[in-house]
């Protein structure tokens, strides 16, 4: 064995490992669907209060959140199942967002339902939780602009905590569009084309 052969082997290992890790598993689809569903849900809730429709908010949030989870199940059994490779980053990120989704669902339904959490603070609380998700995802995939979205969510949470009011619902809906749905489309365009994933 010569030094060149060994160096060649190590360079070969490095190349394969780096190329495999480049399979960024960021999926814009999840962000787009959840962003649109929740922003519509928030706007309907705002309209329900503003125009005093007295419609059941529980029913419409069950439909919104249930629809989101149904999408996740279908997506997991169709698109995710067909993915040729699963990286460690994707696995960690997937479980991170799964835990965030479960936490937010519990807080939203059980937290508010048991009066443990006041509905007026649910938006800023969700905003801080989403910030954790974006910050962690950005670090996991080493994508700075995704990490920086967290500062938008944290900033929004500060505003909503300091200035309470019904406008929270529209403000949060706008944040869902600007800081979730639009980034979802950008991710879909960027990584969908680059690495053949959604």
């Amino acid at each position, binding site marked *: *064995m*010569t*030094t060149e052969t*060994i*160096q060649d*082997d*190590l360079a*070969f*290992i490095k190349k*394969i*490992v780096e*190329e*495999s*890790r480049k*399979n960024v598993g960021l999926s814009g689809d999840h962000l787009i669907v959840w962003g649109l569903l929740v922003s519509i849900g928030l706007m309907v809730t705002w309209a329900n209060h503003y125009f005093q429709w007295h419609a059941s908010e529980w029913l419409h949030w069950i439909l919104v959140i249930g629809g989101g989870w149904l999408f996740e199940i279908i997506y997991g059994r169709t698109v995710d*199942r*067909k993915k*040729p*490779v*699963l*990286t*460690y980053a*994707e*696995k960690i990120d997937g479980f991170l967002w799964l835990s965030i989704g479960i936490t937010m669902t519990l807080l939203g339904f059980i937290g508010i339902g048991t009066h443990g959490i006041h509905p007026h603070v649910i938006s800023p609380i969700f905003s801080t939780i989403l910030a954790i998700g974006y910050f962690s995802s950005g670090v996991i995939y080493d994508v700075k602009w995704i990490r920086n979205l967290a500062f938008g969510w944290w900033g929004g949470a500060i505003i909503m905590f300091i200035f309470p009011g019904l406008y929270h619902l529209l403000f949060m809906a706008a944040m869902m569009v600007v800081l979730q749905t639009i980034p979802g489309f950008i991710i879909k365009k960027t990584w969908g084309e680059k690495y053949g994933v959604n």
Partner: protein
Amino acid sequence: MSEFNYKQLDDIIHSRIRLAIMALLVSVESANFVFIREKVNTSDGNLSVHIRKLEDVKYVSSTKKFIDRKPVTTYRITALGRKAFEAYVKHVNELLNIQS
């Protein structure tokens, strides 16, 4: 200058294609046959033979499932395989240090 025993190198891993398969699988959670074939840049038959050798020594495990009625085999590295790969890289590095 210290001696390096080349016999310490794992024969199973010490083949260009098997090394590539191991390097790929050590860096991901799992990968299917087609993905590995494209990354390693080899033929179906050649990959089958080499990946079978890795499975025989339990360095790699596989699961089969049907997607759109087509069989898809997914591979992942085992704990034993990871340990063997790390030992291989360590030995190669040692050899490099001795020769340089």
